[in-house]
């Protein structure tokens, strides 16, 4: 197999793993692990009261915005690197 075939195989495996999570749980809303932590603590120690609140909490839409901002910052840097690699390679090959 060529190297690119291994890459494709890897990406297919990634897609299958993530998709199977959705197929196996058709009714789940996939609530985030960060939000559910409080439930676990409530089970273990129902009397616990948090002693400090987040200084600011974004609404759902804003949360999505900031999550995509976070991803965009990272993706921009990785994309810049990949692009500069391509230019470098083209220069070398003349």
């Amino acid at each position, binding site marked *: 197999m060529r190297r690119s075939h291994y890459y494709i195989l890897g990406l297919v495996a990634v897609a299958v793993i993530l998709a199977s999570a959705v197929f*196996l749980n058709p009714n789940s809303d996939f*609530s985030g692990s960060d939000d559910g932590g409080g439930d676990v603590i409530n089970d*273990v120690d129902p009397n616990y009261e948090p002693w*400090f609140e987040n200084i600011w909490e974004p609404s759902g839409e804003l949360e999505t915005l900031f999550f995509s*901002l976070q991803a965009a910052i990272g993706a921009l840097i990785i994309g810049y*690197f990949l692009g500069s690699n391509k230019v470098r390679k083209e220069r070398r090959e003349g």
Partner: protein
Amino acid sequence: MCLPMHIMEGFLSWEWALFWTLVSAPFVVYGFLNIRRILRDDPAQRTMLALSGAFIFVMSSFKLPSVTGSSSHPTGTGFSTMFFGVGVTSVMSLIVLIFQALLLAHGGFTTMGANVFSMGVAGPFVAYLVFKVMTKAKVRTSLIVFITVFLAGMVTYITTAVQLALAYGTFEDSLISFLAVFAVTQIPLGIVEGILFAIFVDYLERARPDLTEKVFPRRTKDEA
């Protein structure tokens, strides 16, 4: 029911908050000095430093669905761990955790020390030890990357479970309930993360061996 990667604001008593801050602090200071030295003396490494941070930003922004029906974040810390070690990774994690605590209300400032410890110290530390053993044993690169990245994420979540179990209820009972759900949640996501990084590092080794040869020395053709 699911488990947090970051412990939420106010969910650790101040004693534990202080304890984890003190444990993490030396790693962060060491990493900070390390980063300063790299930026000053080693321009060739700057690219890799930027990539390490970028991957932690991207990966930890993803909420991926898992077989348990809840979703969870990969940590993205394995790449930084392999190329720069624990100190630098703890600084990168601190930056992302501040971003998330400030803008997303994920994690928090009172639990910052504990979260830096799980994501930036414990996970990378264990992954780095195993990584070193595997490089010594000349395991093939893609397998090294897969296992290191998988461990960096898994150990982070195990550490979070231990931290919560220490803080709440009786240790054994709590640990079991904290671990039960999350282990199954995180394993497939760790595999996903491992595959993605194995592909990227393989690409990197071919396209820019100058960036990887310090960690993965160039080898004579030993595979087809």
